[in-house]
């Protein structure tokens, strides 16, 4: 575990290290799709809490509800039942505009197909989430510049996405997801479109972010990618199949614990 917020008043459960504060709390979460007479329970009423600084891989077979879960965690979709709280804020209480602002302020998105805006350059793409906030924080351009350098694109600030390789585009997307210092970074098959070497570089970037104490949720169907995460949450038919904690410790024991 990252050591930034180790002190919690809550007594720790047996076998689990001192839990940090909750970031995303799902309780009895359901997502129902109605197709005519048929009902699909994409999420079937489970509860789960993601805590600060955790790095989770969300896995499961196709149709198990990974994307649905990620959409709800990302506040682009609303649950049909149950409650979802981010940093204590009940998402159901927010209207469409508030939810939009909330997404821009509290969440970072990384997509499989990068999803950069083609007519904007690297720097503008990184700044995108901030531009829709009601108040633009001071010095945000410097921060964007720093992030660009951090992901290795300091030399390509004014390139358009078309002029970048897939790996580079995904780096821009990662920088973009960090611009607002989000409570939660949500990545959907972030390495799915990349060759294994480039994917590895991206995953190393995630490791770094994890080491810095960021909370990361990564949806993947690749076991190899899942193993890189700290914990694995497996879904099956809209329910939790299994929870594995502390999986990725083999070899590189860089983390102090």
């Amino acid at each position, binding site marked *: 575990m990252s050591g930034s917020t180790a002190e919690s008043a809550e007594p720790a459960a047996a076998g689990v290290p001192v839990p940090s504060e909750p970031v995303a709390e799902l309780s009895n979460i359901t997502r129902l799709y109605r197709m005519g007479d048929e009902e699909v329970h994409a999420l079937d009423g489970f509860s789960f809490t993601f805590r600060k600084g955790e790095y989770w891989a969300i896995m499961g077979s196709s149709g198990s509800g990974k994307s649905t879960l990620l*959409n709800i965690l*990302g506040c*682009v*979709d609303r649950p049909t039942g149950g409650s979802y709280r981010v940093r204590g804020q009940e998402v159901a209480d927010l209207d*469409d*505009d508030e939810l*939009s*602002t909330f*997404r*821009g*302020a509290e969440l970072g*998105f990384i*997509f499989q197909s990068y*999803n*950069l*805006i*083609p*007519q*904007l350059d690297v720097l503008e793409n990184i700044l*995108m*989430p901030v531009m*829709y*906030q009601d108040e633009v924080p001071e010095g945000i351009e410097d921060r964007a510049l720093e992030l660009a350098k951090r992901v290795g694109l300091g030399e390509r600030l004014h390139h358009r996405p078309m002029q970048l390789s897939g790996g580079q585009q995904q780096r821009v997307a990662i920088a*973009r997801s960090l611009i607002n210092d989000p409570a939660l970074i949500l990545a959907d098959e972030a390495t799915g479109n990349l060759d294994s070497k480039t994917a590895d570089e991206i995953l190393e970037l995630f490791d770094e972010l994890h080491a810095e104490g960021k909370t990361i949720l990564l949806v993947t169907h690749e076991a190899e990618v899942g193993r890189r995460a700290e914990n694995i949450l497996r879904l099956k038919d809209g329910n939790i199949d299994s929870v594995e904690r502390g999986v990725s410790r083999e070899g590189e024991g860089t983390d102090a614990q």
Partner: protein
Amino acid sequence: MRAVRLGVSSLLLHKLRSFLTTLGVLFGVASVIAMLAVGEGASAEAQDQIRRLGSRNVILRSVKPPQVGDEDAEMRVLSYGLTRDDFERISETFPGVDQSVPVLQTPAEVRSGQLLCRPRVLCTPHLFQSVTRRDLFSGRFLTEQDEASRSLVCVLGYEVARFLFPFDTALGERVKVGEHYLEVVGVLNSRLPVGTITLDPSSEAGGEVFVPLSTGRAYYGERQTQMRSGSMDIQEVQLHEIIVAAERDIDVPVIAAACRSMLKREHDEKDYEVIVPLELLARAEETKRIFNIVLGSIAGISLLVGGIGIMNVMLATVTERTREIGIRRALGAKRKHIVTQFLVETMVLSGAGGVVGVGVGLLIPWIVERAADLETIVEPAAPILAFGISVLVGIVFGLYPAWRAANMDPVEALRHE
């Protein structure tokens, strides 16, 4: 401003498409301005010509009736047109008549030394000047005294004076009008001949000479003799024109009607015409009104077509950029941000079409004026109005695509390929 810049950069991703899209509005705006300018110019010119006839006047004119009888006759006298009796009836019995001025025209040549010209020689009393509102260039016009004493004097039109006396003042000189010498007592300012609206084929546009009516009758008579291809052509016209000036504008239609019925009663054939500048003016204004309605409809339709074109393209753009909309929404854009974005893009398109359209619309009248020698008038309001409409078109036809974009489900939009 940032929104506009971003809108422009989105549009520049598809340069040709954006350009083609603006063409509809461009031509719409340009045609509004150009057609208005040409229309205004034409109607201003027509109205100006009509006003020169005097809006308070009714003009009666003799017209040679269709020729009947023996074409080969060596000598014959054709008698037609307005009579002295007509004039008496009008000036003595018609109500509302301020003045009535008879004009007798004589086909005399006018000479000074070696120089010879054939202007219209108009024999008319002194009232002519005030009724037709002609300005003096120098000297004086004919007077009551000239009329009473059949003076051998004349007043030259400016063109005639310049022709006969190119280097000198014509005042005090003697010119030979027909067989008689007349002293020039005045020169009138230049002006297009009165008859340009209804072209009188017998008139020689190119100048006028005014002689007292009494002098004209005494020295030249009412027979106009002209040699034509060997045969003598003799016409007898008592009066070529009677200009009736009304006291007030509202008297004009009454007088016109009275003249028409009187002439119809007194003349066996239609050897006259009645010209009412006020009626012509009203007709010209009506024509202009219809013209403006037609023009407005055409312009409206072309702008509508332009707008529909823009809407069509924007709808396609919205569909094409569904994913972009999803990304923006996921990253924190509110509905209003998306609406603004697409509305701005549409307005940039139509506004650009409008600006270029105004440019083209101003250029066309400029070219027309030089190439076709037509008067054009660009009202200052026309470009402003046309540009305003183009922006309005952008708003109206941009709203629906923008609304569609803003109401997309972010999840669906993100999944869109």
